[in-house]
């Protein structure tokens, strides 16, 4: 038996590939529908080439050897001899499954950076804006600013526009000139030109103009300040504009969800852009025997890379052969993923956006001032200590939102770059999802 955790592009591809030789597979995901971050909302948000998704969905639902366990959130994984016991919560009850092999495809979530007003109602991540659309179409008719960095801003803006929102601004923080460094990656992935063309047309159709080198530097009461920024993300003084908007959807790339792999003990490493990811080999094997990891958790690279990684992981875990062309496809997509990292970096200048009173940790309401004091007054020199002093990262989200930001702010304040060890240590969360004490204690509701 193989347990696949996560039913996004990577997990779906892994389950489908592993099922080809009849292996028994359990596919666990916390949401009611398969698809993961991007494909889950396919019904309302049209994405480019969503045909791929439909194909996989139907294969998964018709494969007899795949059991899909939906609305099940894995909260811990234990080792029992040679088996992994996966404990999950479903409908208020705890259940568990055991298997010899695990494929983790837990994906990533949007990264937020703090600026004055980022925690106000109306400010959200692009992922959250999309998710809100899904149900009641809450956003329809509202004015929305989409900002941040990365190519995914395009499907978000056009998707929102298609659903009736008025996109009053689309702001990319980086300059397109960066792509000149990565022309080879585009040539290796010519399909991306077609994708760009597709979104370009949509932008034209909805009369959305894409502006570069700009960021939302503050947001309050229906107005966003949009500032020109330089390549390090420092705000250029005197060059700003007020935009009236109901919503700002701001996203700064993605942070991999490392929780489950961390519990199992899979080795992590720090990617070229400072993101902590899992170290895997050419067949997506992690450092822990019989655990494969695929998708965004092994490096941010978009849905296409997740798909091929998932497929390779599924084949490897079910002892099927992996053709050289698949390996080559993965390398090709990786080259593109690296180009994305080069083209959409996050400049350290963001650390100058928060004011002293700006909240950095929303759950525990810790301000920039408190973090600064923990360093200058109390002698915190690393993020762990700063977090212990201020409680940043100790609330409901367990630092998923602010942990990396706090590390980098502390690094900036102490003039020390954040060490790899520190980046890796801060993703350690033994409780992957909240569980009630009653359930934990005796398994009863």
């Amino acid at each position, binding site marked *: 038996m193989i347990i696949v955790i996560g039913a996004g592009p990577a997990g779906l591809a892994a389950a489908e590939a592993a099922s080809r030789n009849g292996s028994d597979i359990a596919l666990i995901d916390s949401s009611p529908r398969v698809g993961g971050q991007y494909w889950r909302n396919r019904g309302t948000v049209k994405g480019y080439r969503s045909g791929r998704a439909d194909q996989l969905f139907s294969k998964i639902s018709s494969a007899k050897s795949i059991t899909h366990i939906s609305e099940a959130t894995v909260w*811990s994984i*234990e080792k029992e001899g040679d088996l992994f016991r996966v*404990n999950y919560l479903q409908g208020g009850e705890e259940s568990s499954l055991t298997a010899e092999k695990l494929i983790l495809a837990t994906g990533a979530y949007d990264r937020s950076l703090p600026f004055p007003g980022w925690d106000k109602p109306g400010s959200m991540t692009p992922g959250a804006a999309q998710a809100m659309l899904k149900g009641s179409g809450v956003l329809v008719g509202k004015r929305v600013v989409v900002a941040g960095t990365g190519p995914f801003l395009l499907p978000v803006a056009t998707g929102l526009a298609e659903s009736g929102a008025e996109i009053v601004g689309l702001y990319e923080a980086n300059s397109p000139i960066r792509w000149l460094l990565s022309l080879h990656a585009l040539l290796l992935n010519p399909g991306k030109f077609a994708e760009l063309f597709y979104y370009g047309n949509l932008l034209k159709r909805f009369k959305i103009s894409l502006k570069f080198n700009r960021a939302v530097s503050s947001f309050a009461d229906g107005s966003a300040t949009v500032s020109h920024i330089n390549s390090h993300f420092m705000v250029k003084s005197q060059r700003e504009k007020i935009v009236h908007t109901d919503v700002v959807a701001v996203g700064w790339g993605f942070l991999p969800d490392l929780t489950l792999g961390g*519990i199992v*003990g899979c080795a992590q490493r720090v990617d070229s852009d400072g993101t902590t990811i899992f170290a895997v080999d050419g067949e997506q094997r992690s450092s822990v025997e019989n655990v494969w990891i695929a998708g965004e958790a092994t490096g941010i690279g978009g849905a296409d890379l997740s798909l091929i990684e998932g497929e390779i992981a599924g084949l490897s875990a079910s002892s099927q052969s992996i053709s050289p062309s698949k390996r080559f496809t993965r390398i090709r997509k990786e080259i593109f993923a690296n180009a994305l990292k080069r083209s959409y970096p996050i400049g350290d200048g963001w650390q100058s956006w928060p004011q002293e009173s700006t909240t950095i940790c929303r759950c*525990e309401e810790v301000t920039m001032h408190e973090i600064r004091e923990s360093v200058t*007054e*109390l*002698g*915190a*020199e*690393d993020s*762990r*200590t700063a977090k*212990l*002093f201020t*409680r940043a990262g*100790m*609330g*409901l989200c*367990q630092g998923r939102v602010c942990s990396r930001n706090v590390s980098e702010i502390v690094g900036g304040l102490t003039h020390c770059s954040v060490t790899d060890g520190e980046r890796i240590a801060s993703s350690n*969360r*033994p*409780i992957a999802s*909240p*569980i*009630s*004490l*009653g359930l*934990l*204690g*005796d398994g009863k509701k």
Partner: protein
Amino acid sequence: MQNPDAIVIGAGIVGASVALSLTNAGFKVLVIDRGAVSSGTTGAGEGNILVSDKDPGPELTLALRSRDLWFEMQEDVGDAFELEAKGGVVVARNDDGPLMKLSSEQSLHGVTIQKLDHASLHELEPYLDQRYQSGVFYPQDAQCQPMLAAAHVIRAVVRRGGAFISQAKVTKIHVREGAVTGIETSQGSFSAPIIVNATGTWAGELAQMAGSHLPIAPRKGFILVTEPTKKYVFHKVYDSDYVANVASSDADLQTSTVVEGTRAGTILIGASRERVGFDGSMNYEILRRLAAQATSLFPILRDVQLLRAYRGFRPYAPDHLPVIGEDATVKGLWHSAGHEGAGIGLAPGSAALITDAILGREQFMDPSPFSPQRFLSMGIEKVLS
């Protein structure tokens, strides 16, 4: 800093306390840590300052004095420790004989106790399971935020003429003619006639650097933290079962759980008694056991969500007593380490014992039970077992 009078190695709560008490006695103190302040076990501790869980004996005497010194230290340094005399409630479900006996003995040794019947117990803790029949209230039990405390204490030391060097790992302790002369660190060497080893779990390594020996080993401990809730738990509450277990030498089986609410509204569930220790990696079985004990005390907590769990390593000596005093063989090398699950509570008392010994002042208690000398007679095999 040129020529400090004393070097304190370790910027946890134990080292911070020694540094402050030496500074206040007129010494120029240099504090050294390989990490930042509170980067060791102090950063994983829960902050209980307990007298209730100690049998009459040297540790209780130390705990009582130390508890008062905590309040003096906070006054001295400024109100920043989140120090609070919240009080502890030890509860009994069936046979309260052992608890009543222990608390009576404790009261003869300076512990303030108040025996509780069913009505008064449930008045103090209205959400406690009704099946608990009786209990004892210990108003002296207190708590603090240990990481903040260590940071503020170190800051006071620096403001009073001391110095703190972080990220400096001690690699050598120089000994000449049986006495310390200084240390080698990753950030240079420093000399002083007095060196205090306050490196907690790592104190054995440091002793070795001076050619001496301390049998201090790490023991894992767990704390569970819930989501913020309405106030359900008003004191530090734990079951008296452990009293009956004290006779048992199987220390690992004793998971006596302390449940308490914090200012932030979260509930902490920790096995803070010094006899409790666990080895191995994150052990979900132990988390389940702690949760089961907490909910059997407070059934209302069944619906409260557990958000996180963390572990730390308690430093312990084979006889479960801290090591406080001058090294058995090396002059000028002082140890304050091995406080196991009570290092927060015992820190300022331990510091006072050391400072008074160095100055030749009268000590508040006979420190010989804590003496590093005691391991000499134990024999090395026993120490390592």
